[in-house]
């Protein structure tokens, strides 16, 4: 089953692939610098104790993103 969703809805421990980044210019560039482009695999590693931000494994590095920012990233969840 393949679901199209945004990154903020990715559950802890789940993988997904990036479809598109709809963030504003500066955040788009920053995410791209981290190697987050169309087709990149992302894993949600951990949510912070207050529920936001969440940490994602992107190309071997763990990056924390706030809900507002991760919700601009369209993803396609992997089959379970």
């Amino acid at each position, binding site marked *: 089953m393949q679901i199209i969703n945004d990154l903020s809805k990715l559950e802890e421990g789940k993988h997904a692939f990036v479809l598109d980044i709809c963030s504003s210019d500066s955040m788009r560039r920053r995410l791209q610098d981290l190697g987050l482009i169309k087709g990149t695999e992302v894993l949600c590693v951990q949510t912070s104790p207050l529920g936001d931000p969440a940490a994602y494994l992107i*190309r071997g590095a763990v*990056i*924390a993103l706030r809900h507002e920012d991760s919700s601009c990233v369209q993803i396609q969840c992997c089959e379970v």
Partner: protein
Amino acid sequence: MGLSKDSMGLKAVDLGFVIKKAHDSDRVITLGGNPNVGKSTVFNELTGLRQHTGNWPGKTVVSVQGNCTYDNTGYVIVDLPGCYSLMAHSTEEEVARDFICFGSADAVIIVCDATCLERSMNLVLQTVEITQNVIVCVNLMDEAKKKKIKIDLQAISKKLGVPVIGTAARSKEGLDDLMDAVAQTIRDSNKSPVQIQYPDYIEVAISDLEPYIKEICEGVMDSRWLSVMLLHGDQDMHGFIEQNLKNNNLTNESIKQTLDEIKKEFTSQGITERQIKDDIVSAIVHTAEEICKDTVILENKNYKNKDSKIDRILTGKWTAFPIMILALLGVFWLTITGANYPSQVISDFLFWIEDQLLIFFKWINTPQFLYEMLVLGVYRVLAWVVSVMLPPMAIFFPLFTLLEDVGFLPRIAFNLDKCFKKCCACGKQALTMCMGFGCNAAGVIGCRIIDSPRERLIAIITNSFVPCNGRYPTLIAIISMFFAGTAGGGTSILSAALLTAVIMLGVFMTFAASKFLSKTVLKGVPSSFSLELPPYRKPQIGKVIIRSVFDRTLFVLGRAVVVAAPTGLVIWIMANVHLGDMTILAHCSGFLDPFARLIGLDGVILLAFILGFPANEIVIPIIIMAYMAKGNILELDNLSVLKQLLVDNGWTWITAISVMLFSLMHWPCSTTLLTIKKETQSLKWTAISVLIPTVMGIGACFVFTTVSRLISGI
């Protein structure tokens, strides 16, 4: 924390583009890399300097330079702030890009993280596009080995077309090879580094544009890279062409024309500017992917498991906050318990010297006023500062550095981010707050890691709400005297708990002030935020202890002593020179007294805080001297005598708490203010940085005093 002799810039100086060569023949090497890949460690090991290191991204916020000699050649090494890209999105990236483009470096070393090589490769590829003289330093090979990551350096070097050297800078492995490669690269002019293949439509545009660009930048800059940058829509580049390259108006015009034609063509094909940018970035990322495929082998696919297990506890829903508080409590408990005994020994010793000094001066027939001024004025303040400050700092700094080295600080930022977001501030403010624990001035400089100017200002203005180590001695002394008792083992736990509570109040006030600022003078919504959580690293305990004692503790202590000595003199004069029937000190404190009483202090205490402006460490010594000048000559060899002195001068528990509140919240010290002025370039924000904590401190003291006086009837 970041405060040491070197990071304060006494040895390694932030000179921007001015490169200081020891000899004209010196070669210039630029050191670049992603944040937190051990660049500073490589820099330190190569130059022998002691630039601050720690396991969190963004501690190096200024470019520093140092010298070294290898194989009879002198080198100037310039350490750039860490960055992920040279596309110049932030100030650090602009600095890095400008330096690599125009810094006239003979070679560029890009330091990479072996445990995260693919990501680092992005920057390598961008650098290789600009200059051929690139050496890739794959650092943290020891960590990679532990995580069973196998890296075929030779294969990567072949694919990249530039030397790739594996290092473990912390244990000095591979640095000789690195310098060999640097020397080789500078000598060798025939290189053919990898070229990034862009999508066809971009390649066509490049070939249209490049001939014109070649005309003006031949031999100065890579024409292909400049073409790509122009297509990428980098506005800065037009400025650069006009300023830095051979000024040829005809060519500049043709470049603009060609660009316009290309853009028209793209528009007619339905290619948006955004797509061009995306395709350029993707081409680089895919090339990086290609280079690391087959050359980086993860033998243990689950190497992240250990880290995520630790993270699940340190940032877990139920465990994160108790652990942060316990860590703080633990650090303070160890500091207070550990410092008790040596403090006593040092103070006994120093006051024994005081007696000897007095005997000596009497023996050589020094006039009474002179030796009293020197011994009871200057020396006594010095002795207090040393015996009270040295032991806690010698324990606190290493402990804190350990937490920093392990990688705990970014987790604190991760845990606290939501609170900062609610205050419309940046989560990285937690990192600058932690640096403030060491020294507020260092914390203010550290605010450069925050990209949004609005959020950076908030972090700068609120930094002094966390007490720096200059204020701990005051807090600890008052807590032990008035609330935890001065003897016995169980009391130090109580002291630590009270101190933790004070710190938490400081953190809470930081939130309150941040929120206030974002609702008033610094209105705005939180900007986007990304923070890397680095892998945990095992700290090198021995090194940490030596570094933090010698580089930080002694430096901070030295500064305190330098300030304390002349202040001691001034206080002694104020306390002993009479104007009319009262001393100058009594005049001043009498003047301040009515107001000070309102906020639970007295004139002497408020005067001490004002005179303590150059360094907060000397607030308590000033209070003591002022009280003692009233006639009671005391041997101040332990805290219970000191408590008696304070109580005799009218101190109650209300005074004690008011002093602690005021110590937590008042104007920042002079060093911090100068730093704020320098960082904000504005008197207005410097003034606000004074006003906000002062007004909040006076308000808190007033409310507390009034309420508790009503309740207790004192």
